[in-house]
């Protein structure tokens, strides 16, 4: 009888404890939508800031008035900003953002396809960079020992060397000297997963170097701070083994900070992977936005910008929810 009561109690508990999460997600989604509207509107307005008209900018200095008029008629660049924005929103809701200016492919399809490539690289790089956490754990629990000093020096060097240098060094070493991985090229994951991983290896490695070093440094500092807490002294006084203390008492308190860095890294890698992508000719979002900007493909730039906002909003929402899952004191609201 009492067991039954306890059982149903647990059931409602689960429901009650899940409710705040739904509420938290929905409030964050609403804010996210507001941010999305604000940024996409700015992206639309941006083209009005260009000298002359947007159509002039796209077509160049030698365009005839007829050509400009034709482009205006097609894309509405002569309309007021708010009108253009509303029609863009309408297009977005219908799932058809039109065609890219030059290759004349559907924008949405192009963006999603390229985004998938960048996602793959970013997530793999993120996975690789997680190696920084156990290393941080070990070196933080043996501070100022040889391993700690070596890892700190390596991470300092990695953080100091810009990605475009790492890219050149790595492609020289791994593609030219060792010939382990191809220097450029691409295979779709859906067509040939093995070749895809082979092509993706170098970009992932280059992209993850900074993140690993950064994650390592943040995690190490977090672990060093956490290991000075009173409850760690208590755990040591209980005679618990070091490994147990690290995983059961130090990891979770250090996680919120690590999660923040991971969220930032992910957005950084999704948005800022153009160096790596253009160097290795990976058809991802960074590479696409770079060529779109160069060719004044305003509709494409706008679409990529919007996608980036969506990604940022989602990632930060997940990070926020992560805090609540990690720290029992955080009330989701």
């Amino acid at each position: 009888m009492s067991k039954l009561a306890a059982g149903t109690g647990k059931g409602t508990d689960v429901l009650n404890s899940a409710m705040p999460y739904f509420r938290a997600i929905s409030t964050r989604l609403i804010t996210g939508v507001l941010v999305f509207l604000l940024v996409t509107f700015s992206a639309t307005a941006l083209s009005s800031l260009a000298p002359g008209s947007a159509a002039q900018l796209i077509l160049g200095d030698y365009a005839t008035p007829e050509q400009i008029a034709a482009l205006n008629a097609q894309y509405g660049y002569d309309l007021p900003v708010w009108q253009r924005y509303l029609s863009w929103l309408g297009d977005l809701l219908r799932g058809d953002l039109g065609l890219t200016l030059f290759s004349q492919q559907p924008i949405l399809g192009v963006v999603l396809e390229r985004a998938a490539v960048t996602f793959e690289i970013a997530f793999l790089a993120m996975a690789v960079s997680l190696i920084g956490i156990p290393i941080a754990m070990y070196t933080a629990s043996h501070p100022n020992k040889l391993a700690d000093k070596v890892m700190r020096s390596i991470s300092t060097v990695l953080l100091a060397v810009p990605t475009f240098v790492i890219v050149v060094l790595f492609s020289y070493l791994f593609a030219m000297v060792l010939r382990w991985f191809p220097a450029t090229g691409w295979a779709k994951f859906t067509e040939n997963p093995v070749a895809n991983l082979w092509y993706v290896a170098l970009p992932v490695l280059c992209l993850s170097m900074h993140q690993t070093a950064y994650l390592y440094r943040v995690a190490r500092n977090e672990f060093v701070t956490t290991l000075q807490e009173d409850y760690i002294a208590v755990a040591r006084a209980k005679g618990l083994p070091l490994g147990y203390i690290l995983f059961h008492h130090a990891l979770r308190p250090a996680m919120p900070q690590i999660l923040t860095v991971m969220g930032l890294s992910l957005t950084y890698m999704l948005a800022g992977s153009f160096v790596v992508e253009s160097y290795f000719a990976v058809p991802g979002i960074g590479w696409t936005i770079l060529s779109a900007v160069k060719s004044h493909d305003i509709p494409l730039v706008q679409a990529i910008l919007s996608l980036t906002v969506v990604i940022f909003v989602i990632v930060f929402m997940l990070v926020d929810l992560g805090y609540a899952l990690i720290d029992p004191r955080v009330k989701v609201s």
Partner: protein
Amino acid sequence: MYSEAARPILSCAAMTCEMDSVSGPLQILQDINFTLAPRRALGIVGESGAGKSMLVKAIMGIAPKGLKTKGRIELDGQDLLALKPKQRAWLIGRKVGIVFQNPMTSLNPFVQIGRQIEEAGCIHMGLSKADARSRAIELLSFVGIPDPEDCYDYYPHQFSGGMKQRIMIAAALICQPDLLIADEATTALDVTVQKEVLDLLQTIQAERQMSMILVSHNLGVVAGRTDEILVLYGGNVVEYGPTAEVFRNPRHRYTEALLSAMPAMDQPAHTRLRTIPGQPPNLANRPAGCPFAPRCPSAQAVCHEIMPPMSAGIHPDHRFACHFPLAELPRPAPQEVAHVQ
């Protein structure tokens, strides 16, 4: 010091702790000697910086890195300083339970309290999950936590300070230790809660037949709850003996000054408390003689030059380190034994 047949649970002999600092080596503890017999309670008192917590930490092997401990510390007959750090931690975790000063920070806010209570039992005694759980719940109710079954899954922030300290006590008891150390365990608590927790500790010590060390800067805490008392000053033992004897008849001038700094019930209202002028000694630059000499009203030239040796009082177990001890009171009739507080 009690000549009982039983082997002492803890003894320190010629224990010295030193730490390097920018201003030279710090003498944190000097020549600490005491023994604690099974089922007896020892009080360690002294003001801030006297080395109370360092003494406990050095015994437990959780002192900050760089602390060099010499001498001999025996726990249940085993020389702790001869053991490897891992074995030492293991032995201490198994045989000693400790409750720290600040219950607010001593519990990991990220771990359910049931887990924090039972974990040492799982590791040291190989308790199964179910056994550990039932024992943790039993201990929770033993230390007076209502609804222990539900509380098992709670996190520390869901409890008050006094409750947290009770939880810490439960966690210290999981391995059925022979010795319970309470390092300023009630200092951070309200006075009423302090008394509850202290009474709980005393009950537990009696019921579980453990030895106990009560570390406090508050003589009142130690008074009625310990058998022996060790007075630390500037890292030295200045007086050591049966609690009742030391309270009734303090021989060292520092102990006497500490006792008279305590408010007494029979004082008229608004009586000014006595204070001890001056500062505790600087550990980097300690005086050659008695550490208390610079603050002692009765200090003579010899006090500043020569460290007084431990001498015995009339009571065979009462020791003190003073060149000019206070006069010995006549031995009391047994019923008069002091019970302060």
